[in-house]
Structure formats: C-alpha cells, structure tokens
C-alpha cells in the first residue's frame, strides 16, 4: 500500500526552526512505522536522520513522537495509526534538544538515571536465593529499556526540567525492591528533595506511553509509600498524604479548605502567604464549614481506618 508520512525535519546547524516534510512510500500492509522510515531513507531521502537498532522493542532506540504521542517506531504499525488518527505525523521526542530530524539529545535523560545510582549496593557478600514471590516485588520496574518515552511525555518534567522523571525514579524503586540492596534508606532520603518523588503530579502519561509496561508512576507511588513507612515524614508531600488521611478519617470526606494547614504546619510565613486566597475563597462560598461532625455513617469509616492501624 502507498502511504503518506509527514515527518519533522530540522538541522540546527543550518536552519532556524523545524518544518514538516511529506513523503509517499510503498509499504506492505503489515509495515511498522520504522519500516516506513527505513524505506524513505533508502529510497527517497538518505539525509533523513533517526535512531533505530533492534527492530523488536528491546533496544529502545527508535522512540519518537508519532501522531502526538511517544511510541517506539518499531512497535507501531502504519495501518493502526492511520485507522486511529487518519494520518501519520512524526516528530522527535518532545521536551528534549533536537540533534537532527528525529534524533533527540538523550544526554539529560541518561544523567537523570545516573543520578539515582543505577547499580546494586549490596549488603555484605554471599548468596541470596531469589524466589518467584520476591521477583513479584520488582513489579516490572526492571523491564525498562531506557527509551525515554516517559520523560518526554512527563507533565512535571515539561514545566520543571530538573525533575528526575519517571524512568529514573522507576529504576530507583527497582533497587528498593531488591532484597540484596543494602542502601535502601539512603536511596529514599536522596529522593526527598526538590526534583524528587514529590514532584510527580500523577498524570499517568508515563504509564500510558511506556512500551514495556513498567508503570513508572506506580513505582513512584511505591517510593512515596516506602518513604512514609521508613518514617521520612517531614516533606510537604508526605504531609499531604498523612494530612489527607487525618481529614478523611475524621470527616469521611476531604475538606479542601483544611488541607493547606496540614501541609504548611506551623510555618508562620507560609500561613500568611495563603491567607489572601483563603479570604477570597471564603467570600465566594468555597470554604465548607459544616464538615466537623462528619458525614452520615462516619462511625463505620472511622472503624475501617482504625482496623488499618490509622
């Protein structure tokens, strides 16, 4: 079949900004986007730059933006994309510097992964038997092929480029889950600051685009849970969780107006900063004042919390 692909071209050494170029090629009905790209490079335009290697979703090289979403070109079929979007529009991974055409600079991505110390720091030496149930704890966090799709799709990274991001944090949980690892508490402590686990906004984009079902956001949630269980509770992020639990246990519902104080605590400057907006909300009738007694059936909710040890 003959298909049309619209591909973003850009050579930063010669051009001011990227432009889209249209290519028509003949490909089999079963063709992947990568096969179409290879055909364009071989038959139409040898100057087209893109990365690829294994052609079977193992190496992670050919991640790019296909019809606005991060995908592996080798795992994406031409026909499926046309059925879904009516066209095929290809660009490099977003929120990264473009080296040329579809080749994005992966440097910052690698640095983020390096920053979490992506190797085992064993507790002593010896043999540890790893059972199938132990492997379950990894929950696929070890399946990452470092394609960078999750970082390109990450909403927090988009507005805060320092954020460690989904892949690096999922990798971090891979070591927290490893029974051989001896440095767990320190690993968690290193993730508490700015750019760490509490910068994730839980938008689920990384879960959606990951070609290997690593579910990075779920791994970040596990890191948050592990932090609280380790007693690391001074961050605003952890106070959000513990404060939320307090309010729902007491009232049955979340009272948004009570949340700021749970997070800010006794920081006077912080309290003063939220007062103006609080007053505007109060005037607009956005501060509920009737929760104190709790909702109907609150006793049963409190019982459930109590039996969970909360």
């Amino acid at each position, binding site marked *: 079949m003959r298909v049309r692909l619209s591909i973003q071209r850009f050579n930063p050494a010669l051009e001011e900004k990227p432009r889209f170029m249209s290519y028509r090629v003949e490909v089999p009905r079963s063709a992947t986007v990568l096969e179409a790209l290879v055909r364009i490079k071989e038959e139409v335009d040898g100057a087209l730059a893109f990365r690829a290697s294994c052609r079977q979703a193992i190496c992670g090289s050919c991640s790019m933006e296909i019809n606005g979403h991060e995908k592996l070109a080798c795992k994406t079929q031409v026909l499926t994309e046309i059925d879904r979007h009516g066209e095929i529009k290809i660009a490099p991974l977003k929120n990264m510097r473009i080296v040329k055409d579809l080749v994005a600079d992966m440097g910052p991505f690698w640095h983020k992964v390096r920053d979490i110390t992506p190797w085992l720091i064993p507790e002593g030496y010896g043999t540890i038997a790893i059972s199938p149930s132990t492997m379950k704890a990894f929950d696929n966090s070890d399946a990452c092929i470092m394609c960078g799709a999750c970082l390109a799709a990450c909403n927090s990274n988009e507005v805060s480029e320092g954020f460690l991001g989904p892949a690096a944090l999922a990798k971090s949980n891979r070591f927290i889950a490893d029974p051989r690892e001896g440095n767990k508490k320190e690993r968690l402590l290193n993730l508490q600051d700015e750019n760490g686990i509490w910068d994730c*906004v839980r938008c689920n984009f990384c879960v959606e685009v990951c070609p290997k079902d690593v579910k990075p956001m779920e791994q970040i949630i596990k890191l948050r849970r592990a932090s609280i269980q380790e007693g690391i509770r001074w961050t*605003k992020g952890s106070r959000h969780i513990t404060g939320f639990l307090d309010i729902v246990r007491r009232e049955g519902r979340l009272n948004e107006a009570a949340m700021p104080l749970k997070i800010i605590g006794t920081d006077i400057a912080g309290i003063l900063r939220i007062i103006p907006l609080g007053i505007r909300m109060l005037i607009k009738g956005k501060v509920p004042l009737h929760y104190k007694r709790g909702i109907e059936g609150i006793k049963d909710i409190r019982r459930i919390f109590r039996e969970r040890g909360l």
Partner: protein
Amino acid sequence: MRFAYYPGCASKGACPELNQSTRLVTEKLGIEIVELVKSSCCGAGVIGEADPDLQLALNARTFSQAEEIGLDIMTICGTGQGIMSTSNERLKEEEGLLPRINGMLKEGQYNGRIDVKHLLWILVKDFGLERLKERVVRPLSGIRVAPFYGCYILRPSSVLGFDDPEKPNSLESLISILGAEPIDYIGKTKCCGFPIILEKEDIALGMVSANILEAKDAGADCMVTPCPLCHMNLDIYQEKAGARAGKRLSMPIIHLPQLVGLAIGIEPRELGFSRHLVSPASLLDKLGA
C-alpha cells in the same frame, strides 16, 4: 434513567456550584439520581499512596451502597471516576481480592455487580447526544469552548476506556451539540497540576498557565472541564499562575453541567457562576444570557 449519585468531596466542599448545577441539569433532562448519602471520599489516589487496601475498602463500601439499591453509579468528578473505575476493575478481576476487601466491610458486602459512569459518558451515551440536541433551547452559538479533560477520566485508558486517550472526542461532540464550537489544543488531555498545588506550587502553577495560554492562543472564550479538581486549580489559582507567568489570563472555567445547563435553558444565576473566582461575565454577555 436512574443512577446512584456519587457527589464526591469537591462538589460538597469547594465547588458547591457543581453539585447544584448537576441537580438542576439531571432534573431538567429527566435523569433520576439517588444520592449515596453515606458514601465517603474515594481516596483520590492519595489514600492509595499510603494504603491501597484502605482505598479499595472505601470504594467497595460505596459500591455496595449502590448495589443495595440496584443502581449504577454516576460520578461528576474526573478524579473520582478514575479512582473508582480502577478500584472496580481490580475488585472484579483480581482473584481473591473481593473477599479480602469485603472482610473489611461491616454494613454491606460488594458483589461486583455495578458500573461507575461519569456524567459526561451518561450524557453522550446513555442519554444520547441526539436526544440532548432536542433539549437545547439556548444554543451556545458563537462561543468557542476549549475542552479540558484532565488526567483521570482518560488515563489509565486500559481501565477507563470510554475515550481514546490519544484522541478523545466526548467533550468535543457534547460542545458541538450544545451549539458551541470546540477548539483543539494539545493541552486538553494534560494535567492541571492540582495534585501538587499545595506542596509544589511552582510546578502546578506552571501547568495552569501553560494550559490556559494554549487554550487562549487557540481562541477559546472559556474552558470546560468534567473534573472539579481541574476546576479548582484552573479557576482558584488562575490569578496566581498569571502573575507567575507575567500574563493576564482571565479565562472563565466552566463545570460540565454548567455548560449543559446554559444550553438547555437553566437560568445562569441558578448555575452558581457567582462562586467562580474568575468571573464568566464576558462569556455570559456574549451569550446574551
């Protein structure tokens, strides 16, 4: 058409105008709703961060209340929909999970027999857009509306499944039926930033301004959202986000049932616009409402 109505925390707290407009719209359309008065918070994903079983138990408890009256649940919160869909899927599919979670409940048991649907889905599919079109008495002509889905009504799509997360269409088709023009922009499926507004304000405000500026550049007169948490962040924090970005945003943020209400002839003052921090006066003027 009857549903067990799950109002959620926001519509009973900071967004009473959402509860108010939902009641007016469903009543006018003849969709009967029975409020689950004993239902709790869904956990919003936050309780699940600390204790996944507790979040499941709270939702199973709500589901059992709907099951007892034999009705599917109607939500009006994108976040609630996401958490409840995910919980329901797990309770129905994971072997051994339902009996274990039921073991935490005392007042009723959940048998995995109900579905949870957002008001948006009910209007588009159960009620039907053609039928809704017949009820439009004040077409929103000349108004350009930016749909803002937010995260949880779309993702994880393996569980939500109503819209294609890469190319959602339910809000757009609803906006068109009401007589307005839906505008397209990349930010419509992105995060509003609300989950971290209190602890990472800078990042969250960056999301607010980026999304609103994009909608504005695309020519939107207002944004409409099926999630009150998105509404809170985009409306309540809009002025702050604008100041941070050095831009004047002034973009009215409209709850889904408010937009429907305007088109089916409910008086604007009844729909609770006076509770918004960003006044929708410009929009209402344009409509001559």
